[in-house]
């Protein structure tokens, strides 16, 4: 059996003396979309930071395709196929949209974005604008486009729909499904149930730094998640 695209084994992580995540184990396979849900402050963003390489684990292992990536810095992880959009500070505010989308590609070309531009025409309209002038939701869409076209094999999105209009959320869900169908693996932290319903294969719910529920996408999923979040 080949190694999963991403595997976390008994990961604990935190800041300084504080442990925010406890004993987290999960896998993501190529072609699969894993959504991670939970209230604010439970450790979801900490988990994404850990996966992206911005935060080292306090214990446990993390591997991509069987290779231990704990010693790899964020830029090194990007080089081996991990694309990441953080929860906040998602763009380079003083740079134009065009620069945001092309600066990290050797060819500096926008060709790879044609499909995404059709879905999100507002982005193409504003390529010459500085990213700092966009609204919060538009910046999220920009970051989303960047990650989807980056060419990575493991795409990590932290709350991609925050501030985004419902019709664009639907587009995002479609793009995510298309990426999964094309063989990519996706990890998406999300609190928006409609995105989870449209895009996820599996869902994990985190509370107080631990995994409290796992389920596959199905008719009972929404109720199960809501119950776990005590709303």
């Amino acid at each position: 059996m080949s190694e999963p695209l991403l595997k976390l084994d008994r990961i604990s992580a935190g800041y300084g003396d504080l442990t925010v995540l406890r004993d987290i184990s999960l896998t993501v396979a190529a072609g699969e979309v894993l959504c991670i849900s939970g209230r604010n402050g439970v450790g979801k963003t900490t988990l994404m930071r850990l996966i992206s390489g911005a935060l080292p684990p306090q214990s446990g292992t993390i591997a991509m395709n069987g290779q231990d990536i704990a010693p790899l810095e964020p830029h090194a992880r990007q080089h081996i196929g991990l694309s990441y959009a953080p929860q906040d500070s998602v763009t380079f505010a003083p740079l134009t949209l065009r620069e945001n989308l092309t600066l990290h590609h050797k060819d500096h070309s926008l060709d790879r974005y044609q499909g995404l531009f059709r879905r999100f025409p507002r982005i193409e309209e504003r390529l010459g604008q500085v990213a700092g002038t966009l609204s919060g939701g538009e910046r999220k869409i920009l970051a989303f486009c960047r990650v989807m076209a980056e060419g990575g094999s493991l795409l990590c999105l932290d709350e991609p729909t925050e501030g985004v209009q419902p019709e664009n959320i639907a587009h995002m869900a479609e793009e995510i499904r298309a990426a999964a169908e094309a063989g990519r693996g996706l990890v998406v932290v999300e609190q928006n149930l409609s995105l989870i319903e449209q895009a996820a294969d599996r869902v994990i719910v985190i509370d107080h730094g631990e995994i409290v529920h796992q389920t596959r996408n199905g008719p009972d999923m929404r109720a199960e998640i809501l119950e776990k979040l005590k709303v």
Partner: protein
Amino acid sequence: MQEAIVFSLNVSYGIISLALLVLGLAIIFGLLGVLNMAHGELVAIGAYTAWAVQSAGLPLLLALPVAAIAAGAIGWLMEISIIRHLYRRPFDTLLATWGISILLREAIKICFGLEYKSVIEPVGGSITILGADYPTYRIWLMVAVVLGFVGLFLWYRRSHAGTRVRAMVANPMLASAVGIETAKLARRAFVLGAASAGLAGCLMAPLIRIDPYMGVDYLLSSFFVLVVGGLGSLQGVFIGSGVIGGAETAASTILGGTGGYVTVLVISILFLWLKPGGLYARR
């Protein structure tokens, strides 16, 4: 009329030469957030390089690359051994670079001694501008510096490397996430800043007093220019130089040298209070 021309040229010279001297610190402090207390000593090294080259009987033009390389090399050593560990500890970088400043100053004393050195202008004489005579070398310097700044500005805005640096400055975490090796980029920016300081010292060498203690003055002026002009932009460097250079010249003529100094100090503190980002902050 002649006096007015000479006065404007003097003011322009004051602002432009100040901007030149600030550039190195503007790169290192403005972009990387490192308060390089050894900035003045890097300028001094550039000036001493000019003297050394001239004393060896070699053409002064040779001093430019040598000064840049010498200062850049010291900057590289600093970054790799010390600064690299301290990016998240601003207090310690201040201390460490202050220690480096003392070290460099003492090293200069050992190598070159305490007496003032002087460097003869590579082009002497004066040019007539709109009917007024003004030293040729100063004119050349001003033109070269302005052209250099314009070139630097265009490079920073247009080139791919410049875009990466701007990205790193704006959002270092995201820059790393998109695959930019921020550590390498930061090191190169630091070396560039150090080399700029050395270059500035070399270019200015025929026009300034050269002694082991010259550095701290330039450190302080550069710092005040950045407080007023704001960190992270070339425009800020010029605006800051304009305000500080202009204020110092004006205050010195009315109140004397000490008065000029006090004025600059008061202005900086006011900016710290009221406009801590400076006039043209772009971070």
